[in-house]
């Protein structure tokens, strides 16, 4: 048997309550008294509510529960906001001589909110209480997590940029062949949307490269890209698929006449001379067209090769024109005559 001065106990255990046999609270640890001020005549039922397990706050009931962890709320807790709950504390009851009970309390799993509410500092904890280390770890953990989130954002941004670059033709800013293949595969998968496919090959482009150099050729290609972008709607797909080859996909398009009109307009605009350092660069374009609704079964490779064949039909017939492919039916290839512009 050892005797301890209650004031020493209150210092060693700043979250303790000493209950007399009649239920009076005779001593409270400094931190507990800060959170919920108590008076000399307060009894256990004025100070505590046992929430889990739930039982009436009297000494006999408490004596029956000295073997397990209890959860309590402090009835006189201060600084509780309008919509806030009382702080829930863990507690263990220890029977002492002469019917007294020592209650030792501590904060629950996440003490952060209670600490903020009561503006507690390291002074409010025992020097050997690991709560402060727990809080250190929690803050350090937050720092590391924040850094991980930032890293993840940067990686996502880098991934998007890389994806964008991988799908873009550097010179013209149009999509590239790879992007077009992916786009067509996706259209084929969805099987719902009808679309028109146009394959464009520039005419007389090689002579500009040969006579005025590659810088002039690049300038012409940039102008062509500008024209194509202007002639399509925002959701249509335009790609540069080769040196002077382009493919256009018109989403949701079922009217071949619309495609013919667009092709004619594009060729008309391509034929306007493009200025390069005082030289007028003259080009034109040959176009092949096909439509997804020409086919019972959608095979994008077949559409591409049909549009390609129609394009070479345009070339063969004298360039500067468009041709609509009619897909092979029962082994017989049907194609309407190329139309000059």
């Amino acid at each position: 048997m050892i005797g301890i001065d209650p004031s020493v106990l209150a210092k060693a255990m700043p979250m303790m309550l000493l209950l007399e046999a009649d239920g009076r609270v005779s001593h409270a640890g400094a931190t507990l008294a800060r959170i919920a001020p108590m008076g000399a005549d307060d009894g256990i039922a004025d100070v505590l509510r046992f929430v889990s397990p739930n039982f009436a706050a009297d000494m006999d009931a408490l004596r029956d529960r000295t073997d397990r962890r209890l959860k309590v709320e402090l009835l006189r807790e201060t600084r509780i906001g309008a919509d806030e709950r009382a702080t829930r504390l863990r507690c263990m009851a220890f029977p002492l001589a002469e019917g007294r009970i020592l209650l030792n309390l501590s904060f629950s799993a996440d003490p952060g909110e209670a600490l903020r509410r009561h503006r507690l500092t390291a002074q409010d904890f025992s020097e050997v209480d690991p709560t402060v280390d727990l809080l250190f770890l929690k803050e350090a953990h937050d720092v590391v997590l924040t850094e991980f989130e930032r890293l993840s954002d940067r990686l996502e941004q880098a991934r998007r940029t890389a994806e964008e670059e991988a799908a873009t033709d550097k010179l013209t800013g149009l999509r590239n062949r790879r992007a077009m293949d992916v786009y067509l595969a996706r259209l084929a998968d969805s099987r719902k949307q009808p679309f028109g496919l146009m394959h464009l090959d520039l005419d007389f482009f090689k002579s500009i490269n040969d006579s005025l150099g590659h810088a002039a050729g690049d300038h012409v290609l940039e102008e062509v890209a500008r024209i194509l972008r202007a002639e399509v709607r925002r959701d249509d797909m335009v790609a540069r698929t080769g040196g002077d080859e382009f493919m256009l996909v018109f989403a949701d398009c079922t009217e071949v006449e619309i495609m013919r009109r667009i092709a004619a307009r594009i060729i008309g605009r391509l034929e306007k001379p493009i200025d390069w350092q005082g030289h007028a660069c003259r080009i034109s374009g040959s176009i092949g067209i096909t439509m997804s609704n020409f086919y019972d079964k959608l095979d994008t490779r077949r559409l591409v090769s049909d549009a390609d064949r129609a394009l070479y039909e345009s070339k063969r017939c004298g360039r500067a024109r468009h041709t609509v492919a009619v897909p092979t039916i029962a082994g017989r290839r049907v194609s309407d005559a190329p139309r000059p512009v």
Partner: protein
Amino acid sequence: MHGLICKTLEEFVIDQHGPQIWSQIRRDADAPYGRFEALRNYDAALMLRLMDASGERLNRPIMVIFEDIGHWICTHPPLEQVRRLIRFSGRTFVDLLYSLDELHDRARMALPGIDLPHFEIAEPDPGIFHVTSQWSFPGAGAVLTGSLRAMADDYGALVLIDADRSRPKGDGWTDQVTVQVIEHAFHAPREFTLGGVT
């Protein structure tokens, strides 16, 4: 070399001297393209090249730069969380000194894989402290000197701090820092509540 340490040098140089100087230092040190990532590991030799290049470009001894970095990580407002983490070490500046021998393990607990210096503390005369460091790099004493100056201010203590030059020892480097605590409560400490700021 943990990226957090490379990143600290990077952020410090950019904050204090601008991104152009840092680009030059990175080129001088033959560092890979882009920013350092705090959560990756880098070649230790690269860190040594960056230290040399920083000294050259900023035209100051690298140990002086390290001392400034030590001060900067405790006082730069966006790094308030670092100051808070250090304040968890104890209630007073002397508590902080006596907790330095836990720093290496504490940091490991928060970020496994980080290699911060080991510190040992002795108090040969009342109020006089010798902090001895052991680290795989030179400069632990310089960084500590800067940080302790900042934290003494934070705790409101009046102290004198001196660092010896780093000396090679074992696989790494050792430094000794002498701290003389003249007044524990010279002015009011900065506020530190445990629950953090909301």
